């Protein structure tokens, strides 16, 4: 088979898997509902409890999980290409540390709990900007190695701030903020999904639009410059869009690790070397993975939940180790 039909098959398979995962996510829960009841309740028919379970508990969870998974996987795919580093991931450039600091400081500063996501987003954005600034100060253009170091340094700084906040702020509130950072779509609401979808679709669209630039950057800076690409600007654009997309996922669902690292690798061998295809396929696969991870998170330890970030990482760590072996 040649390129196009093969990719069409890939998209069909991935979309089908995502639909199946979503159906499983809608059908399974502590309250047993028959497929007919699920269908009717989604349409607003049947008893009030079933309708509320479907429309206000399960459906928002599934949709938010899908959006967060897609966003993280697309962000990771773009960053891996741009940085020419197979182990790059969405939180690399300070997003996780910055978001945690933002969330904890918002709480420690007495902000109501509803403002924690906003604090996390602001912290993540500030950290990404800081990392990019540090990396530029170190040389002419954001060298991936310098970026990586800047990310580590900012992360260490963020950790120190969190420790200080933990030690000095009211214990309950900081704990609450850190619990929230562990990742969950349990509190998903349609209002939240609305703004996240708008932001996510715009960012994902931008990543797909600039994907050909990433293809060129992936060849190496010199080759890209030789092909007439402004390496500095193109690289920075990809870093900023991908990192801010990841920052938005943190605001929506806390930290959901390893999706952005693992999923692009899962699809890359089949989607080919073009980043537009890799990013799009990663989005579909990431959505599927996080819908399923959420299903595991809320059923494995019922009536309690596992942190979503822990479930994705449990699946992701073995894969990460496998990757390390391959690159040695």
């Amino acid at each position, binding site marked *: 088979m040649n390129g196009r039909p093969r990719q069409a098959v890939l998209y069909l398979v991935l979309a089908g898997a995502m639909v199946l995962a979503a159906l499983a996510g809608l059908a399974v829960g502590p309250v047993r509902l028959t497929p007919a009841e699920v269908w009717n309740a989604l349409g607003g028919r049947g008893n009030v409890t079933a309708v509320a379970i479907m429309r206000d508990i399960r459906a928002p969870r599934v949709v938010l999980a899908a959006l967060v998974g897609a966003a993280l996987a697309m962000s990771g795919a773009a960053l891996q290409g741009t940085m020419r580093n197979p182990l790059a991931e969405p939180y690399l450039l300070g997003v996780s540390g910055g978001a945690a600091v933002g969330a904890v400081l918002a709480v420690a500063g007495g902000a109501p709990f509803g403002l924690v996501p906003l604090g996390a987003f602001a912290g993540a954005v500030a950290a990404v900007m800081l990392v990019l600034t540090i990396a530029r100060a170190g040389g002419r253009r954001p060298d991936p190695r310098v970026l990586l170091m800047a990310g*580590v340094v900012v992360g260490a700084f963020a950790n120190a701030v969190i420790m200080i906040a933990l030690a000095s702020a009211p214990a309950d509130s900081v704990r609450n903020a850190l619990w929230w950072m562990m990742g969950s779509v349990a509190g998903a*609401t349609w209002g939240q999904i609305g703004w996240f979808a708008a932001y996510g679709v715009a960012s994902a669209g931008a990543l797909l639009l600039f994907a050909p630039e990433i293809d060129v950057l992936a060849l190496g800076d010199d080759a890209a410059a030789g092909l007439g690409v402004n390496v500095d600007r193109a690289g920075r654009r990809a870093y900023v869009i991908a990192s801010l997309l990841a920052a938005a996922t943190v605001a929506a669902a806390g930290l959901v690790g390893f999706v952005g690292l693992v999923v692009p690798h899962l699809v890359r061998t089949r989607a080919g070397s073009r980043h537009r295809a890799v990013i799009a396929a990663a989005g579909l696969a990431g959505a599927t993975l996080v819908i399923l991870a959420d299903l595991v998170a809320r059923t494995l330890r019922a009536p309690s939940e596992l942190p979503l970030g822990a479930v994705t990482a449990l699946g992701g760590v073995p894969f990460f180790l496998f990757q390390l072996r391959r690159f040695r």
Partner: protein
Amino acid sequence: MYHRSSSLGFGACVALAALVVACGDARSRTTSAAADTAAANVTGAFVLRDDFGDTLTLRAPPRRIVSLNPATTELFFALGAGDRLVGRTHFDLYPPAAQAVQDLGSAIPPNVESVLGVRPDLVMLYASNSNRDAATRLHAAGVPTLTLRIDHIADFRRAVEILGRVLGDTVRATVVADSVRRTLERVQTAMQGKPRLTAFWKAWDSPVIAIGGGSFLSELVEIAGGKNIYGDDPRPAFDVTIEDVVRRDPDVVFAGPESSERMRTAPAWRALRAVREGHILIVDTMLVGRPGVRLGEAAVSLARLLHPGSLP
């Protein structure tokens, strides 16, 4: 970057552990009988084994007490020994006189140096695993330290008795214990024959934390004529999914004022019949929050919420 994400994971684990501790720690429960081995030996010293299995020897009633558990702080005041307290936790706000006692921070685990700084001759700790290290250090520093686990109503009765002996005032301890017991019995008797409403006690919002059978609150609900939907779980508190609460379909919900408001406005909670029917009962979290001398009052307030007009 991996260093960073693992450190954050560590932070989150610390947070988790702390939360579990704050809600009580069911797994490390030692047998309640351990602390009952008390005896006066020939020299007149008073020997006691606490819930960590440590031995405490008191030669005279303590004069400078640090109480790092809100329940024991209340109890010292009730036993007339409030003026002997030289340290408390950040959360010991009852009775109001307790607020004049020096605040030594959040208790689990305590800052050992701050505790030593007020030169106590008795330190009271809650029997959480996180306090084990502090207990060891305090013993090593020669400070008499008594660790008690107070999670259930029976634990409270035992604590009253032990503290009465420690303070050398068993008469007053008996009066306090009897007063609480009589109030609880009065409530229980008044609620007999009333329909048993099933209840969900929401202790926290995100994550949603339910009170389980391992907490005195579950016992209070039963005494007040209700039945905790998570009473069959031996843990004191644990997180639950909203849908699991919906499956258990409680008649009423107990929650604090802010928590109730959040519940009324969150779309997901509309799935719960009790919420749709307006059966969210707002509890006075300061009154019912701890297994102390106000257990009786707390039971009365819950009974009035569950069955209005049933208690004078």
